[in-house]
């Protein structure tokens, strides 16, 4: 029988089991007698073995089988789970992951270590990095009278959910987006023709499209846990690597976001955690000297606030010193000494998001060369999110990400500039102003304006788009206040045209190579306007 058609399904399910194995091993590191974790590990290894055997993937089935045997020793209580055993299980999970992804690896050495494993005679030394805490258990393991773990509740319920190819979901969103555009065209026509029957029918269509949109977008939602499940393991490994003690506390990871946003969060979240462990947390002796526990705490919490999800990554480490950040930025020539003096402390923290900024005393192979915060902010803004920072020297730092629930259908502000209509994601805009021209300051050939006691650069969107400045005769100019690549600034436009919910279509080859454009939007008039990508425009 040709099993290749089931390969994709096998990989997807095996990945889920491997994530669960990683979580359960970390739980066991903190609680060596946790029967639920032992049973869940056994069950995951058993499932992978069964699936791989059906697919005739010998190496995967063999390694999973040996893991199952290995876990059975602990399940029967013959041996206590020790630190060396959990290390070995994590190695197995890593190798299984590589095999599942199609890499050619020889598991014989690891299998031999599993088979010949002898637990340490004496209790092992205290683990240098305690197991990271995972907030939510993945459901209770239910054991049958003979001790064989029963299937998870999800397996028993089978039939209530089905796997759907992501391409189908993407197509559904596209069709819904087209319907939204079409509805807006009809609304425009209904208004122009002043036809009560058409207005009534279009309003009914609007209601149906909104309902469809809600359901289709809901089908694309995934829990944040899809990208956070592997993070406790990453924090554990990072902390060990730099000789620190750290635990990751997760909360709110059941919050759901669009699949595209979830996928784009993987690298930024990992980078924020790396920074927290590598640069934020002090070494254990320094923490004890500062009156803190030797174990540092890094937390990742998420909650929903109206149409946004707020994710906060916090640590209880040394915090950031705004004065030191300013001095470093001046020394690197990123800002002038005068600009540095004018920066309020909250703005100084954002200097870390400027390209080329790093205050790490030395480059480490954990956090690299400090190029990360720029990339983190850019990635977050690319999906329509924002990044904010708070820090207190000696007490720690908090990075807050605000994300939309979806990317395909978003609210935008339409503006006129450079003789064009243009769209900007609402989430990219802090404020819109009618700025009195008398508040504009000219210094060293640059335009600035005062906003909440901070001097912000004032740029022209026309200029950024390579068009001449529009002649301004009015007393005020329309300005967007936004935060781009670690700096707050004002953008002068010709006119504000209003807000609208739109369906954004991505640009393909070759136009996607043009900086500053994130996609296109078709308005109710049929006009195609571009969604701007400010970070790449500046």
């Amino acid at each position, binding site marked *: 029988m040709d099993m290749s058609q089931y390969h994709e399904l096998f990989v997807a399910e095996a990945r889920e089991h491997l994530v669960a194995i990683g979580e359960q091993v970390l739980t066991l590191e903190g609680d060596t007698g946790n029967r639920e974790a032992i049973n869940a590990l056994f069950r995951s290894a058993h499932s992978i073995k069964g699936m791989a055997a059906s697919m005739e993937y010998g190496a995967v089935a063999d390694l999973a089988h040996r893991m199952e045997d290995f876990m059975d020793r602990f399940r029967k209580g013959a041996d206590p789970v020790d630190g060396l055993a959990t290390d070995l299980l994590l190695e197995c999970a890593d190798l299984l992951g590589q095999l599942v992804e199609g890499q050619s690896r020889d598991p014989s050495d690891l299998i031999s270590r599993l088979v010949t494993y002898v637990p340490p005679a004496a209790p092992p030394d205290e683990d240098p990095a305690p197991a990271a805490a995972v907030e939510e258990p993945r459901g209770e393991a239910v054991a049958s009278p003979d001790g064989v773990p029963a299937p998870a509740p999800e397996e028993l319920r089978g039939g209530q959910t089905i796997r759907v190819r992501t391409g189908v979901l993407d197509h559904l969103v*596209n069709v819904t987006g087209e319907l939204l555009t079409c509805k807006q065209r009809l609304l425009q026509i209904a208004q122009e023709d002043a036809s009560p029957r058409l207005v009534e029918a279009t309003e009914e269509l609007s209601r149906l499209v909104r309902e469809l949109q809600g359901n289709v977008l809901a089908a694309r939602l995934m829990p944040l846990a899809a990208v956070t499940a592997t993070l406790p393991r990453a924090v554990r490994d990072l902390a060990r690597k730099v000789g620190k003690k750290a635990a990751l506390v997760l909360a709110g990871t059941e919050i759901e976001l669009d699949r595209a946003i979830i996928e784009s969060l993987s690298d930024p979240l990992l980078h924020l955690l790396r920074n927290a462990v590598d640069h934020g947390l002090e070494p254990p002796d320094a923490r004890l000297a500062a009156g803190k526990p030797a174990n540092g705490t890094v937390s990742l919490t998420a909650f929903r606030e109206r149409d946004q999800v707020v994710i906060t990554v916090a640590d209880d480490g040394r915090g950031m010193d705004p004065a030191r950040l300013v001095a470093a930025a001046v020394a690197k020539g990123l800002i002038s000494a005068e600009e540095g003096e004018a920066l309020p402390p909250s703005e100084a923290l954002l200097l870390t998001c400027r390209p080329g900024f790093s205050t790490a005393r030395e480059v480490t192979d954990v956090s690299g060369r400090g190029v990360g915060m720029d990339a983190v902010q850019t990635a977050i803004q690319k999906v329509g999110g924002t990044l904010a920072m708070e820090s207190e020297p000696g007490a720690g730092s908090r990075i807050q990400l605000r994300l939309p629930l979806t990317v395909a259908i978003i609210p935008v502000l339409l503006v006129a500039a450079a003789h064009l209509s243009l769209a900007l994601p609402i989430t990219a805009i802090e404020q819109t102003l009618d700025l009195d021209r008398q508040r504009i300051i000219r210094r060293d050939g640059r335009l600035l304006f005062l906003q909440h006691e901070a001097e912000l650069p004032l740029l022209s969107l026309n200029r950024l788009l390579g068009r001449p400045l529009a002649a301004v005769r009015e007393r005020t100019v329309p300005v967007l206040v936004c935060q781009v690549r670690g700096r707050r600034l004002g953008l002068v436009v010709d006119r504000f045209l209003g807000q609208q919910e739109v369906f954004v*279509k991505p640009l*393909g080859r070759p*136009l996607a190579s043009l*900086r500053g454009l994130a996609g*296109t939007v078709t308005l109710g008039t049929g006009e*195609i306007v571009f969604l701007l990508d400010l970070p790449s425009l500046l």
Partner: protein
Amino acid sequence: MTGDADRLLLCRVQGQSFALEVMAVAEVVESPPTYPIPRAPAAFLGIMTCHGIPVPVADLAALLGSRPAAGAGGTVVVLEPGRAQLALRVDAVEQIISREEVLGENPGEGEWAAATLLLPGGAARLLAVDRLVTDLELLLGRC
């Protein structure tokens, strides 16, 4: 019977004949409405929609070094979306011929020429579409 893989679309730009493999072409549209593309070079006349897909229109004459057309008017050859989201403005589409009608083939001469085709009515430059799209990506990446 001749399939799309064996057919060529012939068009004319500034008095010269060009050929595109029919497999690379999605549609031919007359004077579609277009909207300006910010920051794009002058050879990009604007963006149009083809079956819901946003497609930039580039003036083939301008890409080859002539002055860009005043607007997107004229005939627009929309490329297969799988190859690129791009349409080329040409002066006219002449006909579709079978490869069997090609009398001979010489090495390509000039920009994006995959070959010079010898046809009963004269020579035509067979456009290397993938190379053209790659070069446009590089051009736009420098803007």
